[in-house]
């Protein structure tokens, strides 16, 4: 028998030739103590390392909502190990939902071909493409577009034209042809984000600017509100986002997914922009130690372990 401060351990079945103890409880006890020490001492405003969420919190998670570019990808591709994690999460009873600013067309492809994914919220929260939906049209999440109270599609095209006229060097986004609720303009040095926003305001449109694109949208939803609507109405009705949904992102345009209290936990992969480099930007609560898909893998592994 082994006696420790956290309990006694003894082999029950002595008939086996090789009798082993399982002292994993001791390791978990000390790990937990280290996590508590870290949470108390970690420098303020810095995301805690990925191991810090309590296991009981992770065990309650039903939905993993992840951004795409830079979060589940590495070098522009999704690695087989990440796809395997999607499947393992699904097999553990959880849903994987991708949340992206990419077009509905890209979202449809992701939803159709990626294993383990329940659905894709695309165009920064405006549309949902459920997995298994075949070639049906995407679901418009923003009721204002459906009931006609949102700016019209014609206004969107006029706004895009106005931006291109104002900034002659600007180029329209290459995937505008498969967008439903928005249009994009490629970001560039000669394009002032504030100037683009003012033009969009003039047409009643919303404007969000990222490192790659300026989005002109008929929808007032964002990644967070679109995700919550998609879950509540279509993918996982009854799920309590504050306790059963975790989010994973990598950049400032994912900051709405990191909003404190909105989700059970908000994770960033290693390159997630810390507040010190993006003033005013909400940082995730917890940070993976690796970039991109590898960092996502760390988070997924923790979730799977918590379930075990």
């Amino acid at each position, binding site marked *: 028998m082994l006696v420790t401060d956290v309990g006694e351990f003894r082999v029950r079945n002595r008939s086996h030739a*090789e009798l082993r*103890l399982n002292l994993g409880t001791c*390791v978990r006890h*000390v790990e937990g103590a*280290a996590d508590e020490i870290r949470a108390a001492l970690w420098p303020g405003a810095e995301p805690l390392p990925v191991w810090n969420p309590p296991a009981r919190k992770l065990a309650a998670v039903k939905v993993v909502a992840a951004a795409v570019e830079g979060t589940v990808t590495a070098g522009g591709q999704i690695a087989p190990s990440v796809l395997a994690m999607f499947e393992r999460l699904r097999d553990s009873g959880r849903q994987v939902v991708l949340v992206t600013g990419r077009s509905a067309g890209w979202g449809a492809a992701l939803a159709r071909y990626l294993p383990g994914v329940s659905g894709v919220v695309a165009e920064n929260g405006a549309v949902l493409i459920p997995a298994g939906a075949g070639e049906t049209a995407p679901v418009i999440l923003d009721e204002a577009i459906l009931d006609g109270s949102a700016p019209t599609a014609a206004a969107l095209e006029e706004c895009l034209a106005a931006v291109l006229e104002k900034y002659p060097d600007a180029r329209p986004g290459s995937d505008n042809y498969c967008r439903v609720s928005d249009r994009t303009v490629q970001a560039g040095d000669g394009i002032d984000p504030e100037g683009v926003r003012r033009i969009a305001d003039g047409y009643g449109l919303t404007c969000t600017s990222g490192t790659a694109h300026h989005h002109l949208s008929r929808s007032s939803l964002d990644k967070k509100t679109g995700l919550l609507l998609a879950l509540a109405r279509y993918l996982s009705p009854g799920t309590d986002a504050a306790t059963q949904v975790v989010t994973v992102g990598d950049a400032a345009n994912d900051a709405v997914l990191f909003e404190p209290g909105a989700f059970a936990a908000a994770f960033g992969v290693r390159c997630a922009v810390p507040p010190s480099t993006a003033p005013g930007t909400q940082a995730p609560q917890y*940070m993976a130690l690796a970039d991109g898909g590898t960092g996502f893998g760390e988070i997924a592994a923790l979730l799977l372990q918590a379930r075990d």
Partner: protein
Amino acid sequence: MALDSPHHEVFVSFASRDRLVADRVAEHLRRGGVRVWRFVDDPGSGSWHLNELRALRDSKVAVFIVTPHSDASPVCLDEAQRAAAPARAGTVPVPLVVGAWDHEASDLWLLLSKWNGVIASPDLTDEALRRLTSIVQDRLGFRSVSSLSTGQALVAVKDDVCAYLAAHPEATADEILGKTRELQVQHRGKMVGFAQFTFLDRELLAAGLISPPQRRIGYITSYLRAFFDQVVAGAYTGTATRLAGHIMPGDTVVVSEYSRVLRQAFKNIAETDHRLMQSLRIIVISRTGMLLVGDEPSRMADELARMGASTRRVHFSDWADYLMTGTDTAGIGRVDKILFGVEAFSVAGDVVFPQIVKELAALQACRAGDSGWNAEIIAAGESYKVCRDPREVTRMISDPHTRSSPVRSSTCW
């Protein structure tokens, strides 16, 4: 040869062709305040070899200068065999390998490698002499860490790591881990990795998220201090409390490897149930090795007797005979509990010391061969002593006497 002083502490074993090396070693030890048995050309009265063996017997530490010459010397080999014998209680061997040669193939190394020592290759430098002196001083109790428990030794390493971090605010994770390894060898020899006990490796990985480096170092320092305050400092009392609960009135208890936990468990019993303590018959196994120096077994027995128990010392050889052959020349009699304080475990329950591993194997054999053997084997250790990486423990339980695959203790629980 003749004795320089009847109160010498250290014996130096060497081949005659290594005399100059031995002179340097002895001189360095003396400068460090150590009383060394002086070897002189005139053997004086009686057999010089007998005098030498008496000096070896009466020394607390024996430094063995391991060279191709001493490896070929029957006298040196005889002295090493005597010092390394499991039944020997008085002298702790400290090997000093000198020169660039295949010492691992030597018989002397085979006998002595499990004790902490110094490898001075290719030459015997001042740094090697300094390390040797430090080890000898530790063994003699010159420094407070010499006979520390694992937890106390960890505290000493922690304090030095924190001082290092304060002086090196730009240190990288690899440099910090390297420093901890160096410090733990300095304080305690080849103990299980400091990072395994403290999760420091994991924390350094996490601290990579913090910038700039000065903030990172500040965090690591505060983490280490908090870890010791909250995890290490009190864990042994919790273990001791649980252990005390397994001791029953009238038990005959064999203490095979004393530790702070075992001491605290008996103190708990003595303070809360003196009648239980008085009913115990405690047999302390007398041996040296790793942390046990000189007369520690007798001090343990005395301490337990002062607490109220009936105690006695039994030499390890008698205990081994009792276990392996059933011969009870020492009058051990019925045994109810066998207690070990253990330095570290793997997640699967392997323990680190070859001596204990062998003992556990013998106990298991007893169980297999004799259904009448009912003694309960209890190993005690704090939860932080369970290593996440099984290679740490495997490395420690490799038996230098067999020079083969690691001995496993897993069938003994």
